[in-house]
């Protein structure tokens, strides 16, 4: 269990990373709706993921709409993949699914 990446292992951050793993990039509004987190919580966890270098945040415009786009970085994708592999290993050892 100590091998697990603590940045990703936190449930809210794992949720964000898993959502971002399925897209090229997504905006704050979509993450807010899909994660069910509050604005403050989502901002705070995105900040931590950005600090760790797992997520890139970009403020941009589409037409006249200001957007905060988030995307998983290469290290972020790698960390998520490794996390899943480790979890699989742990579950296999414990006989879980």
């Amino acid at each position, binding site marked *: 269990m100590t091998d697990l990446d603590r940045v990703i292992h936190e449930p809210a951050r794992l949720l964000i990373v*898993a959502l971002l*793993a*399925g897209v*090229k*990039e997504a*905006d704050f509004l*979509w993450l807010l709706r899909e994660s069910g987190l509050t604005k403050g919580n989502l901002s705070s966890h995105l900040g931590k993921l950005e600090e760790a270098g797992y997520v890139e945040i970009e403020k941009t415009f*589409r037409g006249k*709409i200001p957007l905060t786009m988030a995307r998983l970085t290469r290290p972020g994708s790698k960390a998520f993949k490794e996390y899943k592999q480790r979890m699989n290993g742990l579950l296999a050892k414990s006989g879980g*699914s």
Partner: protein
Amino acid sequence: MTTNADLRDLEERPKRYWNVDGIPELMMGLVWMLWGGALILGESLPKDRGHGWYWMVVPAALVLSGFASNWATKKLKEKLTYPRTGWVEMKEPGRGVRLMAAGIAVVSAGALALMIVAGKAEGMEHTATPSIGLVLSLAFVVASVRQKAPHMLALAGVALVLGFTFGMMKLGWTSLGWMFLWLGLAAALLGGWRLRRYLAANRMPEGSSL
């Protein structure tokens, strides 16, 4: 603890988001109506040189209509969906996947045109419609399960019923055209209804007109 099934479900959510608004069904329905109309028109033409030319040009146009529909779907989503419930840039398929999809589309259209112009195999024109109806129905069932979209089961039922109904009418290749026309209409109506519901449930945030 978050299980792997939960993680897989989360990773699948963007695909489900693509179907949240009814726009894909609406555009697919319109394209199928176009295909059905083109098939019916082609079969009603006199079997002269013009018939041959028609079936050389139209399949290419129909393939292009598929790409145009994809483009239009994206544009509509940028205008209607993303400002309401969030922008998502889907992962682009790799070059190999794109080439393979384009290849399959071209070969399928060519094979269909060849079958209609030259294929006089006994009974083929009567079995094609129920067979294609069955394949489409199964595709809708698979899509419904994978994308957790129960409304697609309705289209699966419609495809099956239309395929067998028009197949039994023994109208030749025209029956395929009628099947696509009616299935397209059903998909477009379902998509339009879902889009209306989506727009009513998700108002545009203030100050976000494009």
